[in-house]
């Protein structure tokens, strides 16, 4: 048999007809155009700043900020440098984002599961909730909550009281324990308990793999956690002192409190995002084939067991990627706090920008903070997603 004698044409043929050559050319062109545009903009910026006498650089971070912040997470006053103000802002952003993510997950999951309830009223309410909250801009919702918390609630002197919790225009005041070193023992106990529970559950899982019998771990875990935490508390000298708020003549004094700004941001973000989370959960559950649900009923599981043991674990794989997006959206939307004066990182950058005129630096700080948060969250969720994906051979 004749062997094909012609060699295939060389791939790298430096002519206009070679794909490789054209590809290279296009890339060089694209990089040149983008690079040129960036250079042009940067050049203009430097020129403009020189002409207008705007200083640049991050040295302003070490100057005293000169403004107060409504609710610092840690000791801060107006003499502190800018970098500390930014740190307070980042802390406030993270605080509202983390609490919001936890609450929105709980609420959203309940509503998403509620869409499958056997009760028509529950189904209808969950549907109405989702359609109402996701079709109204989140900024508008924040503004409305802010209006509620600052103008429609009673004055501080007539605060609504439930037990030792006060709700008024001044925010939500609640009793909080006085922090003493004894509490450190309690937390040490709690951490030790969590580690112990982790090992206990791993042992239980191994036992299940080996023998096929599933030892119940729930009550055991609860017992370990309670025992070690309370034990730690006793070792620490059982501190019981609380800061209980008391209604004075003009203000509610003592205790810990949430400001109206914080509450407005938290409520707005949580309720808005919960509508989207509910949709994510609903579509995740709907993606589990109907046979799974029927099989669960056939072996006599209750509706709750069916949801918990059969539907949710399978739905979770579909749910996690869009859920990550919702968490990131909530974090990014927390930047709207600037509209109602909650001192998050955007709000503080905005103040710093107006005081120092360093627009480029302040906006760069905002973007850096959010990019870091977004990218690290996606990395974590990708890792978790890979872990919970179906193990296939």
């Amino acid at each position, binding site marked *: 048999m004749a062997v094909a004698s012609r060699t295939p044409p060389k791939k790298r043929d430096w002519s206009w007809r070679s794909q490789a050559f054209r590809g290279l050319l296009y890339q060089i062109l694209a990089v040149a155009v983008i690079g040129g545009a960036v250079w042009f903009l940067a050049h*203009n910026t430097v020129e403009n700043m020189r002409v207008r006498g705007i200083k640049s650089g991050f040295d302003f971070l070490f100057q005293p900020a000169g403004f107060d912040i409504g609710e610092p997470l840690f000791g801060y006053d107006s003499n502190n440098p800018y970098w500390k103000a930014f740190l307070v802002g980042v802390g406030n952003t993270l605080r509202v984002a983390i609490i919001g993510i936890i609450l929105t997950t709980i609420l959203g999951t309940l509503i998403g599961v509620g869409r499958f309830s056997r009760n028509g009223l529950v189904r209808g309410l969950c549907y109405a909730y989702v359609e109402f909250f996701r079709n*109204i*801009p989140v900024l508008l919702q924040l503004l409305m909550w802010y209006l509620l918390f600052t103008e429609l609630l009673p004055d501080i002197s007539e605060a609504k009281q439930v037990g030792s919790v006060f709700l008024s225009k001044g925010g939500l005041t609640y009793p909080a324990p006085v922090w003493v070193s004894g509490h450190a023992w309690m937390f040490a106990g709690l951490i030790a308990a969590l580690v112990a529970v982790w090992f206990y559950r791993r042992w239980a899982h191994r036992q299940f793999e080996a023998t096929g019998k599933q030892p119940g771990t729930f009550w055991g875990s609860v017992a370990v956690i309670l025992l070690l935490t309370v034990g730690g508390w006793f070792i620490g000298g059982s501190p019981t002192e609380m800061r209980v708020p008391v209604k004075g003549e003009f203000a509610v004094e003592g205790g810990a409190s949430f400001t109206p700004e914080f509450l407005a941001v938290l409520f707005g973000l949580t309720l808005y995002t919960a509508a989207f989370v509910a949709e994510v959960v609903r579509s995740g559950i709907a993606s589990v084939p109907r046979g799974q649900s029927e099989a669960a009923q056939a072996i006599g599981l209750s509706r709750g067991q069916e949801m918990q043991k059969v539907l949710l674990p399978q739905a979770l794989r579909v749910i996690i990627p869009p859920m990550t997006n919702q968490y990131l959206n909530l974090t990014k939307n927390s930047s709207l706090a600037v509209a109602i004066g909650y001192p998050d990182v955007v709000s503080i950058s905005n103040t710093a920008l107006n005081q120092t005129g360093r627009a480029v630096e302040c906006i760069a700080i905002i973007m850096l903070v959010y990019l870091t948060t977004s990218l690290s969250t996606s990395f974590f969720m990708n890792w978790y997603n890979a872990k919970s994906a179906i193990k296939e051979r």
Partner: protein
Amino acid sequence: MAETIIFQSKPARPAPNRTEGLLPWIKLNLFGTWQSALSTVIIGALLVLYVPQFLNWAIFTSTTSTNADACRAAGVGACWGAVVEKYRLIIFGRYPFEEQWRPLVATLIMLTMLVVSCIRYFWSKWLVLGWTVTLAAYFILMYGSLFGYLDVFGLSKVTTDRWGGLPLTIMLSTLSIMLAFPLAVVVALGRRSHLPAIRSLCTVYVELIRGVPLISVLFMASFMFPLFMPQGVTIDTLLRVLVGITLFAAAYMAEVVRGGLQSLPKGQTEAAASIGLSYWQTQRKIILPQALATVIPGIMNNFISIFKDTSLVTIVSLYELTGSHGLAFNSDADWRPFKLEGYLFIVAIYFVFCFAMSRYSLWIEAQVNKSKLR
């Protein structure tokens, strides 16, 4: 001989329970199990407790009097008079009062065109022409002329800083989605390109924009953009914000389009290559027509979220619907206590638009999926 079998009739089985009609539905859906019955009772009690209170406030004791003192009288519920008094300001913002017919007509034309574009019967090349005419008419009506030319209609000039309210919301969202679309297609193709430099440029763009909040992009458009321009060149705030929103929307839309591109089987590209089509021919004739059809619902969702996100331009002081509400109420001591009624008014406007669009998106998704059901 076999025993004689005497026929004995068995009693008839009872008729099956009725499963249709109101009563069986109630029995099944409201009182199916004891848990269900309990939730029905609790929810029902809450509804009975609060719905009449709300209706009482919103309708029965409400007033439409445009006298602020009448609203403050005891026992009066919602003061819709605040809306009656302020609705022109809320809807049209700071646009000159006598000229407000212009944004009204311009917005009606644009809305008509949006509705027309949603109807299948009109999907043809004429839409492009229709939109060109619509946009030209919009700017002539709003600005008084088209980029300073064509001011033959004798309309007075209204600069963009006076534009506001609903016309601005609709224009910003429509225009930014239209401008973002071609950019999104190019970026989505770029992210799937074999050329590493182009792929990484597109990836960096998309991830960078998606990683930061819209507000930081708007801050950039508002504070940094003037620094970017050469000496002596100033660009209108509205235009800068429009560019910002467009760049933002394009990154999100690019991901939607990329999803559509990925959903196509590889065989399509290979088949196109085997009949000798070039890269651009393949994309234009084979890949994009199929991919774009599947992403229409996704793009519709982009449109809804951009429509809601335009409310953020308030923060960089453009008075669209949310901003013009602030304009109407924040500095008016008489009507300030009735801000809530104003909020409910714009909530209703946003809700009507977004809900209609999300219904349409569902319909079009069903249309798109029809072709896959064969």
